[in-house]
């Protein structure tokens, strides 16, 4: 299966979900990072405050009295290492780690109290750190004594990163599980849904070539019913076509046996001396001609069916085809003394088709017309054209045809001349017209009641001008 339905469905379901999950994971991770920062910034601030509480003013100078325990948190604290520095009222370094970079930012414009705090990313000992800067007002015992001291506390990012990694990992695991579950469920659902298709495939593969009965489809989903319906319809058409062909083969063998049977009797009569030898041979020759014509027409019909769709139609000039076929049949017309005329417009009339098919068609129409026309009667072949089609009109002066016969004449082996016709000529003509998208009509001239002759009209779409 090149375009596997299963693979397609999977791609269409898993693809968007996976994309969504990826975007979701990224945003989840970002959110988590933000939460972690907020939480840890608070503890940083708490540390800064607790240092700020310990600030005092002595002799107009900032004094720091950090108890040893308070310092401990900066040394061991937790996994993250911390550092601090305290700057005096004039920005001078007072205590802590002097190499911790001085807060250089400007306080954000917020509310009065919070405005004294800021958080920045900085670097300490070549490591990225998160740093809280607190402006702590310190008031001395004497009035006017005191000022704003700055407390900075920094912390390395290990803890935050470890936590973020943990959260990311958890999230990814959950999302992967989700994708896997969706994928699995889809796979199972699609497989179950496709089971009837597989059953249909097996049924078709194991089917006997001659079995054209409709497909049985228990449990086939409604979406596939039209497909099976179409297949069944095709099989019906095939069955009908096969039936017609079987009928044709049966009829054809019967038709071929008839002249052979006639020949046998004619030969026996001749040999037994019941008939004059020359007369017998002449009769036999007539029978043979009939058999030859029948065989040729059956071949032509077989060829028409064989070449279906084999080659594209070409522009064919009706004048050329007409002249060729009429010249070919001229001896027959001369022999009957027919008054023949070819009537053609001055310019070429090109239709879409195959020259040999049109020749075959015209040969049959002319042949019928020659046979229908009485000795010395008028017979014409006219080439006509209008905006859309080119027409061949074979106009005889015979008896015309009865309305009952008109349609049946196109069926194989239905002949208007029980002794002379093969019954295939018009079948071939109709077949050619169907192949080339044309039409054929048999029209009694001057009404069906007392026809003055028959007009056999074959019309074909004009070839596009080059």
């Amino acid at each position, binding site marked *: 299966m090149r375009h596997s339905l299963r693979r397609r469905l999977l791609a269409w379901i898993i693809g968007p979900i996976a994309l969504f999950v990826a975007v979701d994971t990224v945003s989840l991770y970002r959110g988590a990072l933000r939460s972690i920062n907020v939480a840890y910034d608070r503890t940083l601030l708490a540390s800064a405050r607790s240092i700020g509480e310990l600030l005092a003013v002595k002799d107009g100078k900032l004094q720091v009295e950090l108890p040893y325990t308070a310092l401990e948190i900066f040394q061991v604290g937790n996994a993250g290492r911390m550092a601090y520095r305290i700057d005096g009222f004039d920005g001078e370094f007072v205590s802590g780690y002097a190499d911790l970079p001085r807060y250089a930012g400007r306080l954000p414009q917020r509310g009065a109290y919070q405005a004294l705090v800021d958080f920045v990313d900085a670097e300490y000992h070549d490591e990225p750190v998160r740093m809280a800067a607190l402006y702590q007002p310190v008031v001395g015992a004497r009035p006017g004594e005191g000022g704003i001291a700055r407390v900075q506390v920094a912390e390395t990012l290990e803890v935050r990163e470890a936590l973020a990694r943990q959260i990311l990992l958890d999230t990814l695991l959950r999302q992967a599980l989700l994708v896997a579950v969706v994928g699995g469920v889809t796979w199972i659902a699609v497989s179950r849904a496709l089971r009837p298709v597989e059953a249909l495939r097996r049924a078709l593969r194991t089917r006997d070539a001659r079995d054209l009965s409709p497909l049985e489809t228990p449990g086939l989903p409604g979406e596939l019913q039209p497909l099976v319906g179409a297949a069944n319809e095709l099989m019906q058409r095939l069955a009908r076509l096969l039936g017609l062909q079987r009928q044709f083969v049966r009829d054809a063998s019967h038709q071929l046996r008839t002249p052979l049977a006639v020949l046998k009797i004619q030969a026996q009569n001749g040999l037994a001396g019941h008939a004059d030898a020359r007369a017998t041979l002449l009769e036999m020759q007539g029978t043979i001609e009939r058999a030859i014509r029948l065989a*040729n027409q059956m071949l032509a019909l077989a060829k028409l069916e064989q070449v279906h769709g084999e080659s594209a139609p070409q522009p064919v000039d009706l004048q050329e085809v007409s002249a060729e076929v*009429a010249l070919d049949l*001229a*001896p027959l017309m*001369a*022999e009957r003394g027919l008054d*023949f*005329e070819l009537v053609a417009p001055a310019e070429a009339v090109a239709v879409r088709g195959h020259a*040999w098919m049109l020749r075959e068609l015209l040969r049959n129409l002319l*042949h019928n017309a020659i046979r229908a026309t009485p000795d010395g009667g008028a017979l014409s072949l006219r080439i006509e054209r209008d905006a859309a089609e080119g027409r061949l009109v074979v106009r005889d002066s015979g008896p015309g045809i009865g309305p009952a016969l008109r349609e049946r004449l196109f069926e194989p082996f239905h002949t208007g001349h029980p002794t002379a016709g093969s019954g295939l000529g018009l079948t071939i003509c109709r077949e050619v017209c169907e192949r080339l998208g044309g039409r054929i009509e048999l029209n009694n001239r001057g009404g069906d009641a007392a026809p003055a002759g028959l007009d056999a009209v074959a019309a074909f779409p004009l070839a596009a001008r080059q």
Partner: protein
Amino acid sequence: MKLLVVEDDVAMAQALQLALERRGFEVECCADGGQALQRLRHAPPDLALLDLTIPGLDGLQVLHKARAEGLSVPIVVLTARGAVGDRVQGLNAGADDYLAKPFDLDELEARIRALLRRHGREQGAPQRCGRLSLERESGAFYVDERVLELTPREQALLKALIAQPGHAVAKDKLFRVVFPMESEIQFEAIEVVAYRLRKKLVGSGASLVTLRGLGYLLRAEDAAPAAPR
């Protein structure tokens, strides 16, 4: 005239031999492709009739090889296959003519004689239709022993028609024969020539048949009915 008939169906070969010998040809038969090629090489006939489905080398192979070796014997392909594709294939392979079985003996003879004439292997034999005959060297027409008086144009027309008695010849083709190199003449002028010629042919046993809009045909008046095709 020596003909080689390459045909593996014995009945067909015998019938052909009989018919062709009665029509004045010397006939040799051969039923195998390889042998046929040997004959064409070492004892070339004036013309060969070649069936396509024969044992040994098949007919098309014989044709190919013969032409590849530069053998120029005129070859007529006879076959029951009859499809257009085969015809094209046969002619492409180097056949000079092609006849589908079953064919008419008169038709076969006409084709053979036409080919022999074209290859310059047959001269002098008069062409006939009814009691009318054409003496090849002089170009004169006779009704029995009497010379038929004709203008050069009538003569050209009759000559073109008697080459294929019983077969129609297209008007434009006749026009080019009767009025060579003349472009000012109206197309209808051929009808005048034909009209006069028809009158002169009365009593000759041959008659000129007009197929209006199509062409002309010369046929023997007492001819047996031609076989429909």
